[in-house]
Every structure is written in C-alpha cells, then in structure tokens.
C-alpha cells in the first residue's frame, strides 16, 4: 500500500518537473500572459524633494512662510534643470495643486 502511494507521488513529481519542457504546455501558459512592461514611478530626486517639502509642511516642521519660500526656490531650480518628461509633468501637477490650495 505504501509502495503504491510512494510510486504515485514519484510519478506525479516527474510529471510536474517535466511539464515546462513540453512545447504545448509552454505555449499554453505563455499565450495567456500579456507581457506587461510595468514601469514603477521612478522618483527622481526632484520629485522626492518636493514631496519632502510637502510632508514637512503637513507635519508642522515648516510654517506657511517657510513652505512658500521653499516651494519658490524649488520652482527656480527645476526651471533651470533638465528632468525626465514624465517626472516634470507630475511635478507640475503637484505644483498646480499646491497653488490652487491657497
């Protein structure tokens, strides 16, 4: 009885191991996958800095005046620098939000 169970498990083991080498199986699992190239948001340093300024303001480290000063100097810097297009778009969006909050 035990031998039978053991044999059965070993057979299943071998099947499981060899499955990917079967062309039909391999094509089947690859067909259903849409290869998505996911790019996670790549926080460039600038975006990080802006987020830091906002968090500091929200957590009370900066008061209104200091916050405004920092945002102004930040805007000056990014206007002079070259940033990845997507990152620039996100930064501009954040800045618009900040300005509309006033």
């Amino acid at each position: 009885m035990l031998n039978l169970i053991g044999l059965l498990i070993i057979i299943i083991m071998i099947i499981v191991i060899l499955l990917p080498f079967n062309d039909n199986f391999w094509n089947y699992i690859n067909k259903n996958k849409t290869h998505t190239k996911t790019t996670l948001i790549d926080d460039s340093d600038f975006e990080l800095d802006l987020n830091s300024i906002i968090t500091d303001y929200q957590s009370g480290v900066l008061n209104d005046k200091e916050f405004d000063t920092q945002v102004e100097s930040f805007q000056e810097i990014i206007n002079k620098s070259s940033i990845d297009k997507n990152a620039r778009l996100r930064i501009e969006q954040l800045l618009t939000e900040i300005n509309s909050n006033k």
Partner: protein
Amino acid sequence: MIYGSLGDLVIKLSLGMYIYSIFAIFIGIKYQDLKFIYSARLASYFGTFLLLLSTITLVLGFVNHDYSIQYVADHSSNTMPYIYTWIAFYSGNEGSLLFICTCLSILLFLFIQNKKLNDNSINFSHLFILLFQIFLLISTSILANPFTEAPNIVQDGQGINPLLLHFGMFVHPPVQMLGLTAVVIPFSIAIGSLCAKNENLNINSLRVWALATWVILTIGLALGSWWAYTILGWGGYWAWDPVENSSLMPWLLMTAFIHSIMVQKKRNMFKGWNLFLIIFAFFMAQMGMFINRGGPVPSVHSFGSSSLGWTFLLFMFVSTIFSFVFFIYRYRSLASVNYVQSVLSRESLILVQNVLFLSVAIITLMGTIYPVFTKSIEDEQIYVGREFYDLVNAPILLLIMIILSIAPFVPWKNSNISSYINKKIIIFVIAVLFAILNSWIISGHYWVTISFVVLYFSSIQILIEFYKILKTSFNKFKNLRNALFKFLNILYSNLSRYGGLISHTGILLVMLGIAGTSFMGIEKDFALKPGQSGTLKNYQFTYLKTDITQKSDHTNIKAVMQIDKNGKSLGEYTTSKSYYPRFDMNSTKAGILNFGLEDFYFSQSVISDDNSAVFEVKINPLVSLIWTGAFVVVVGALISVIPVYKKKDKVKIK
C-alpha cells in the same frame, strides 16, 4: 497505521524535489533558460504540497495515538486533553523542525507567486531560500526525524509537558517559529539581488517581506510574554531567559532594518548598512534556532538535543561568513550617491536608532552566551540574570523611545536645531505638564513620568499633523463629504507613514506598561493560615480554604481567596497548582484580577499539611498597556504594509 512510514517517505521525497529545484534554477540562470526556472518553481510548489502532507500525517499520528511512532509516544498520552493532540506535534524538537520546514515551504510558495521568470534577483533569492530549506530538511529527515519507529510499542505515551497545557500553546510557538524562519526571506531577497547585480536590492519586495517578518516576530514576542505572565506564577512577563533573548535579538535587528530601508527608499542611501543589518538579523534568527535546540546554553525552553544544535551552529557560521565575504566583494556596487548631511535629520536619527538597537542586541547576545565562555575558561557556568539586562538595556531603550518621539517629525536631509527647538518647545512643555498631572493622579515614579512625557510629546505632534491635514482638506472643499474624502485620500497616499505613527504610539504604550510594572509595582510574600488576611496597598485578601482534587495524571491544589479593594468586596478568586508526578513538575495558574490598567496578581507557592500557605502577591500597575500597546503596534504595521496602488504605465508587448 501507516502514518509513520508515509510521513517519512513524503519528507524524503520533498527533499528530492528541493534538490532538483536548486539544480534547475542554477541551470536556468546560467543558460537563461526560462523553462528550467519554471520547472524549478513547479518543483518548489510541489514541495510545499508534500511537506503539508507530511505534517498532516504527523498530526493524525498524534490524534490517533499512534505509539508506533517514537515521537508520538514521547510527547502525548492517552489522558491528555483531546484538543491538545492536534498541536502536540510542534512541542518537541523533531516535530518543530518539520513545522519550520513546512512554514518555510509556504513562505517560499508565496514569495515566488506572480514573479517574472526572467527576474534573476528573484531566481537567486529563490536559490538561497532553497539552500536553507534543504539544510533544514536534511537536519529533519536524517538527524531528527519525527517519524522514527518506536522499537517497541507502548500502551500509553509519556504525555505532554504540563506547562504547555495552556491556550498560549496554540498560538505562541507556531507564530514564533514562523517569525524566526521568515527572516530568511528578506535576507535572501537582499543577497539574491546583490548576486543579480540589482542595485537597489529589490527594495519594494524587500520592504514588504521585512515588514511582514517583523510583524510576525512582534506577535510572537507579545504572545510569549503574555503566556509567561499567566502561567509561570512569578507575576512577570519577561525574564531575559536565553530563549526569550534569542527571539528578541532578531526582532531588534529587524526593527532597525525596517527603518533603515526607509532611508534607502527615500534617499537612496545606507544600502551597505542595510545588507549588514539583514545578514546580522539572519545570523541572530539562526542563533535563536540553535539556542532553542539545546546545546551549551541552558534554558527553561530548550528542547535539549545537543548534536543537532551544533549542526545549526555550523550552518549559521558558514552562511554568515559567506554572506559577509560576498558583501565585501560587491561592496562598491552599493555605494551611495547621497550622504548624511546634518545631525538633526531624519536619516541621521534613524542611524542613531539603528546603532542603539544594535547595541542592545549585542549586549543581550553577550549576556546570553556568557555562560558558554565562563564554562570553557573557568569551568563555572555563570548565569546572567535579568538584573543585568534591566540595568544595562533600560537606559538605551529609553533613549530609543525619545528618538522615536522626535525623528518622524524632523525633515529629511537637514534641519536646523534651533528652529526645531523653537517649534517644539511649547509642545514639549505641554507634554511635561500633562505627564506631571498624570503622575499626581496615578501616583507615579519618575521613570513613569518620563515615559508619559515621551508618549504625550509624540501623540501631540501626531494630532497636530492630523489637524493640519484636516484643515487643508476643509480649506479646499467646503462640502463636508468632499472634505472628508480629501482627508482620507491624503492619509491613503501616505499609509506607510500613518501606519508607522500608529505603531510608534503602540510602542510607547508598551513602554509605559513596562515602566509601570517595573517601577510602580509592589510584591510581597504572605504566610497565611486559613481564615487569615493580608493587606497590600489598597487591596485586602482573606485566605479561605484549599481544595485538593486528584485527577488521573495530576493533583490539583486550589486555594480560594476573598479579595477586597478599598474596603469593597470583589468576590472569591482562586489560584491553583497542578502537580504532575510523571514529570515531577508543577504548573501554576495564578489568580489575576484586572482593574483597567492594573492587575492584582496572586499565586500560591507553598502549601503545608495543615493547609497554611505562602502566597506571592503582586500589584502590577499599567500592565494592560503592554498587551494593548502590542495590539496597536501590530495594527499600525499591517496598515503600513497594505500595498498602495500607484498608477503604473503599462505597455503591451507582443
């Protein structure tokens, strides 16, 4: 009954699967053949299935009292309560090893879910996890096999250790063992990414698994302390016992780690330091398993199989040395672009916190293995008791708590000390005033007052932050519903921070509880004859009588006390001691009365023939804060771990 042979066969087959898996991954990486990678993953999945099967057969062996298996005969009996037969399998050395192997197989299963086949950092990580798994499986199946046949079948087993007949047995050991095992996952992620030359150490995956491991370890520690409190009879929850220490040390390092990877995520720094921390954490986790298996460090907890302990020690040193060598070899690729710019900045304070946690871990380690040194040098085994650890570690832990109340509210990069003081001084003063007010009401001790100050200082800053966000939301949206939505939105976008703040508050509550019990507590022994009373603070108690009942495998001695508080009667309460002649062991059930934050704790230590007894009576102020605080910590950490779905740019490739 075939449980024994089936279980044994299945373990060995799973070992075969994992060995194949390693070879397949190796070939898959070397020749970039994704089919081999996929095959390796399928083999790992099947290994999980086989180990689960093996565990089930062992459990069934216990439930059906199959004494043809030696391990079942050693750890169960016909008279033990039925429900405990379902969990007795992890009460001994061999069975707990099988349990650990199964846990690891499940973690591995979860880890490789939905991961890209061509992601070599995942594949290398998979490889390292497998190395650990194979080591554990070889130790189990060859050196400590739970399915070993009994030379002759007994009618009744030895029985389970009476101290384990407690609700805690259902939850603490599995969680604790799972936690120690889980440390291998973040370790493998880090080392695996290093192998694959993945510069950022797979930070997102690393963070999630590190947090998950940390939560499990936290729950394990909390459950263990609570269990010790209710069963051990001395009224305390932590004795700095070697095995307790061995579960604390990985926790300390993981706590440091989950903060320093935050610095890596936000500032792209500390990569080398993170790698060092996680290697050390894995070392500590293995140390934990080693001390648990017995060997040179004696403990109330250890399983006591010395030869296996040395195997663990060997693997621990080999894995640590290999990791460090590899770390040094690849050190240049981890160099940071940024550096710590100012002493008062968040990354600087996190670094200080890390160093402090590391210090506590090292001091605890030295104290724990001190008996080994003295035994080999002077042939005397000097045990280091809790007084040493309390004295030395307490100030360091207090310092960490103080930093905890400062760091989350200090910006990254740099900050000005005088402007910080200017902003926070009012809050600090308010916190001090509240704390002193508290102390007058609760009648405290200055350590407790300090803990209150830190708690209030941190909490007020948190409340101010919430208030500011609320104000922003209401400024933007006049409509109440929209404003609340905006408020929740802001919170949701920063869940890791707010979860962290909640956990911090929980830790401060725990610290307050510890300070209360340590410095405001009172204990005293009372020798009473039936009818006599005693008083401790505002509690009065009268020893009424003792009932002795004889059960099949133990004698139960139950003492009944009438308890009054402030003159008002609270009723009759009992404390009992059960003596198990087969184990020559006493298991105590203390009487614990809870009044909000305070516990009135009493247990009987000696009962003489004329029924006069000695009672240990203890008042534990603020002790409930420990359990409540631990719960809050876990809730906060779980909130932190919730994945926040950011918009990802998806590009379809044919």
